[in-house]
């Protein structure tokens, strides 16, 4: 039998703040700012995002319009700020639904195994065959464009992904002796699953939710970009990339590029945060 090398001084807790983690701080700040922008859009936006001025189309940055105007003469900064709302709400809903459903299915599958697990895993395999965007397009073809159909479709298509990742971890936890000790100790299955397994799966769940958020945002923005999601003139980044595209040839790429930049910044922030949380977690796994 292997002699375990005991870690004699405890590995530092993941949340220990000996050195400030600039990745977490900066990405966290970006995400917090975005959320604040979404909540306080009416206060922050200098102008009405829907007010068109045909006399001032495609202007460059000026005192009146800090980031210039779009091809209808609307203030770009205001539209970008209002755009945060729908651009974040959609992916947030998708991840919330997919995580909730995925986690419940994952833990039940991991605990009960047997036919339930097989059915769930098989269903996940089949759903996996539909790339999220294709699924969303099928939904739009059925129910028409808008926010609801793509969000529901993407929620369904993100569920098996999250389910698989969480199930693997839940299954690993379930097979650890501490869970067996809980079972032998007489704890009810519900208590074991929630108080022990779910709690130990939680860090992974947060990481996966953060990482998937970026992908969901991109997918949903792509749906809007294709004209299948939220419709113009609603301010939303994917829509703005699309409506601004015709002005590029005329030498006015600002609307598309700025909206695109917002998407990139948001996605990169969520990805970096997720990666960093993931690597911190690895550090806490036993040596």
């Amino acid at each position, binding site marked *: *039998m*292997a*002699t*375990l*090398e*005991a870690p*004699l001084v405890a590995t530092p807790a993941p949340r220990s703040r000996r050195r400030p983690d600039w990745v977490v701080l900066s990405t966290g700040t970006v995400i917090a700012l975005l959320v604040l922008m979404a909540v306080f859009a009416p206060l922050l936006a200098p102008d009405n995002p829907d007010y068109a001025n045909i006399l001032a189309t495609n202007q460059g940055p000026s005192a009146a319009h800090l980031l210039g105007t779009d091809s209808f003469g609307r203030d770009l900064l205001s539209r970008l700020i209002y755009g945060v709302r729908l651009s974040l709400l959609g992916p947030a809903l998708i991840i919330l639904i997919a995580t909730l459903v995925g986690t419940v299915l994952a833990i039940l599958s991991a605990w009960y195994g047997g036919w339930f697990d097989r059915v769930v895993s098989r269903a996940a395999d089949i759903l996996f065959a539909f790339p999220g965007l294709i699924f969303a397009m099928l939904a739009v073809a059925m129910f028409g464009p808008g926010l609801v159909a793509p969000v529901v479709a993407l929620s369904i298509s993100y569920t098996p992904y999250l389910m698989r990742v969480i199930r693997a971890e839940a299954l690993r936890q379930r097979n650890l002796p501490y869970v067996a000790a809980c079972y032998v100790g007489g704890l009810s299955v519900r208590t074991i699953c929630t108080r022990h397994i779910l709690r130990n799966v939680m860090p992974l769940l947060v990481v996966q939710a953060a990482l998937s958020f970026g992908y969901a945002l991109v997918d949903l923005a792509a749906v809007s970009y294709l004209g299948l999601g939220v419709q113009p003139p609603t301010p939303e980044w994917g829509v703005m990339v699309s409506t601004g595209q015709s002005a590029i040839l005329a030498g006015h790429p600002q609307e598309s590029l700025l909206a695109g930049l917002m998407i990139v910044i948001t996605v990169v922030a969520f990805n970096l945060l997720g990666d960093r949380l993931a690597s911190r977690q690895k550090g806490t796994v036993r040596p």
Partner: protein
Amino acid sequence: MNVLEINHLAVELPVEGALRRVLHDVTLSIGPGEAVGLVGESGAGKSMASRAVIRLLPAGAAVHGDIRYSGDSVLAMDRAALRHFRTHDVAMVFQDPRAHINPVRTIGDFLLEALLERGERRDDARAAVIAVLAAVGVSEPERRLRQFPHELSGGLLQRVMIAAALAVSPTLLLADEPTTALDVTTQSDVMVILDARRRERGLAMLFVTHDLELAAAVCDRIAVLYAGFLVEDAPAGDLHRNLRHPYTAGLLASRPDPVAPRPRLAAIPGRPLSAFEVGAGCAFAPRCAFAVERCHLERPELRVLDAGRVACHRAEELAGQLALSPTPGGSE
């Protein structure tokens, strides 16, 4: 000339950006054909010591002291010399063959690789490998060459690892807990073969293990490590008769015996310390029943005593006492 000479070896490894001590002071030599057991509990640094010999420490490790193979400094070797040293002079057997053999390549690939690497002809290498497989008691060697590691049992796979080590005809064999992952009867089988083939070929061996009795059975000398210090070096046959260091005595007394049980085991109190945790005095002092004030303040030097060497201030006065009165039992 000695095959291996280790002088005041100290090793630090980078842990979270800072260097952490894993070995303090190890001085040890192995003569031609001699087998030395390096024994210690977890955190003692025994694996690191064996890896330092073949320069297999993680990147960023700081090594102090001197390691000489047949008089040449291993630490000073350039790339080509190190490769020659590893391909011709030394071979290592690791603890867990399942992890230490590439799982996606065949046994044949594994065994031949080292020989082909040093430019031997494929046919010759193949013949040599088949012969050495047979010598370590692997049946149907030619079929084994086509098999993958997962198709072999643990004991068989460890024999393959030993065959790989013998195949390069080294002068020095490093064995790092080679039987720890195996069942006892398999361990016995593997040790018989390792011991016999080593003696036949006159190989020198550094045998790293946590099991004092196992080391005593197959080695000429036993070196005991505690928290990165070499605390005792004694002839294996002398080990039970002539106890010199309280830690070694404690280790022997901790182990139950299947035939002659003790009513109560003489446990050493506390837990084994890691090298980086030790204070100013003797590393074992906090757990030692015989420690006096001096032990806590002053580090004992390794010095010659009878047929061996020992690092204990009170070794002479305790001689004879240790065997009779095992350290009192206690808890952490």
